[in-house]
């Protein structure tokens, strides 16, 4: 490592593995080159045919057994899988890093569709806590209600709940879009870092508490604003984007988006340019 006492601030930070960039105005970074097709496929994923369809009854299966069977069916080229009798089981459909049409004929318990990248999922029921946590890409549509921590830490993709959701929706989200057709509970958008949340109904207390960045659109009443969450002007491009998104999401197509409220980070809590105390010690 270079002599930290003599080099510039920028070099110090870089020498310590950090950077000093300001995130204002930044959009999603591109980590993959579209020309390098192999970057879009994970090792061990399958080439599936969406027209090849099958049913899977998981009534008497445990969640690991069901998930292994989904993987097995994908390995046989099935691109559309209908899950029968999920009956509120936890952790169904987790870790799918593949193109796939997945349909659940019923409700899921906790952690359904967690850590997925790519599938198009329709859940004809309700989901429990932490649905689609860490979603990277794809689309998950829930026809009924969802529990708390809906879309926690998602990086990308579209997550749509046509009913109402519990508390802490989109907590720590880093990208993607969450759309709620009904109401949302307390601490919606808590510590969100990027991405967008759309709520057509009312939302509970502490909306957008400690959000770093990202945008929240609310159609109904707001219980209260969280720390550093502030109103922002709803632009015409916002309205265009909202109309397009709601149409694609098959939800609220005729909703009057011009009356929606737009909430963003006040950025008073930002402290990116300051070193942590322990790092300061090393830099002195």
């Amino acid at each position, binding site marked *: 490592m270079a002599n930290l006492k003599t080099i510039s601030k920028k070099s110090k930070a870089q020498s310590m593995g950090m950077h000093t960039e300001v995130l204002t105005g930044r959009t999603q970074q591109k980590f993959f080159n579209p020309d390098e097709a192999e970057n879009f496929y994970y090792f061990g994923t399958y080439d599936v045919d969406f027209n090849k369809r099958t049913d899977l009854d998981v009534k008497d299966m445990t969640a690991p057994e069901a998930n292994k069977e989904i993987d097995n069916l994908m390995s046989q080229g099935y691109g559309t899988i209908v899950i029968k009798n999920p009956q509120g089981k936890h952790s169904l459909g987790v870790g799918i890093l593949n193109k796939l049409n997945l349909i659940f004929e019923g*409700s899921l318990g906790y952690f359904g569709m967690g850590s997925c990248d790519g599938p198009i999922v329709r859940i004809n029921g309700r989901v429990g806590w932490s649905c689609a946590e860490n979603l990277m890409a794809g689309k998950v549509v829930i026809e009924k*209600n969802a*529990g708390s921590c809906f879309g926690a830490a998602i990086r990308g993709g579209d997550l749509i709940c046509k009913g109402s959701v519990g*508390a802490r929706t989109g907590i720590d989200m880093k990208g993607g879009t969450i759309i709620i057709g009904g109401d949302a*509970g*307390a601490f919606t958008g808590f510590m969100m870092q990027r991405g967008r949340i759309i709520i057509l109904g009312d939302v*509970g*207390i502490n909306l957008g508490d400690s959000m770093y960045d990202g945008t929240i659109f609310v159609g109904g009443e707001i219980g209260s604003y969280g720390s550093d969450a502030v109103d922002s002007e709803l632009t015409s491009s916002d309205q265009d984007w909202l109309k397009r998104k709601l149409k694609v999401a098959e939800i609220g197509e005729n909703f009057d988006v011009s009356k929606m409220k737009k909430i963003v980070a006040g950025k008073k809590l930002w402290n990116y340019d300051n070193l942590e105390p322990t790092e300061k010690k090393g830099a002195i």
Partner: protein
Amino acid sequence: MCGIAGLIHRGKSSNVGSELQGMLQALKHRGEDSTGYALYGDTDGKNFIMRFKVGENVGEGSSSIMEDVSVYDERKKVVDQTLAEMGAKVVKEERTLPYSLRYEIDYNVKDLLEFSQRIESIPGVEILSMGKSLEVIKDLGNAKMVCDRYSLDKVVGTHAIGHARMATESGVDIKSAHPFWGYPFSDVSVVHNGQLTNYWNNRRVLENKGMRFMSECDSELIAVYIAEKMRDGATLEEGMKASLTGLDGVFTYFVATKDSLGMAKDTMAAKPLVLYESDDLVAMGSEEIAIRSVLPQEIDTYDPFDGEVKVWQI
């Protein structure tokens, strides 16, 4: 972690013992140190049913000790003698386990405070429940084990609440297990999932007001807190709403009375609850799989929001 479950049939009775067993067994992964049932059975309403223990079933971390059955026998004799002195006639007596008893008592007094104080002044004796319909049964092990041990699967009634416990704040024993009786109120019981952070402050205040605590389990505070509010004239719902600000911490809890069942969720909605509501049945639990054990077909459920209180009547 703990799991809670409850159900209330409106306008009819059902096999609530078996139904609650299924719900709690579905939640056993949330804790099986102990399991407790508060069952509101069909009775003629003439006699009090007193569930009490004369000793402990001692598990890990408990401050209690295992005792010889002869000690339990002696305590039972003192209880019988005390009941006779108070003019309470034991109509029916069941001793399911050496330390666990069920008495049906002909006792014509509404205020149970003095009655309970006298019974519990006998060392090693604790009333688990007192009421004309309520019976609290709790012991170590998962829901099926407790159900089998106490033959609860045949109990018919209108409503019930229960708890699958993972011990965190106090030891593994019956006195720390849920549900808690809303002493000294007839037919009031409480189960709780969460952690209360102003337990000792509230306990000191309530003890100074003459309320009684039998364990050091923070959940007992909810039963005592609401009982004290009701003693001062509040309705169940008013007491529960006051608890949202009076109790600090994270919680979802159920309270049941002779003819009602209520739920409350803290203002941060930190603890889970899934609810199913129809015209003739309300079922709720920490996870949907609990409800699925009584309603396997596809149903509409939802999570109550933060700071929500609901009460249903039979």
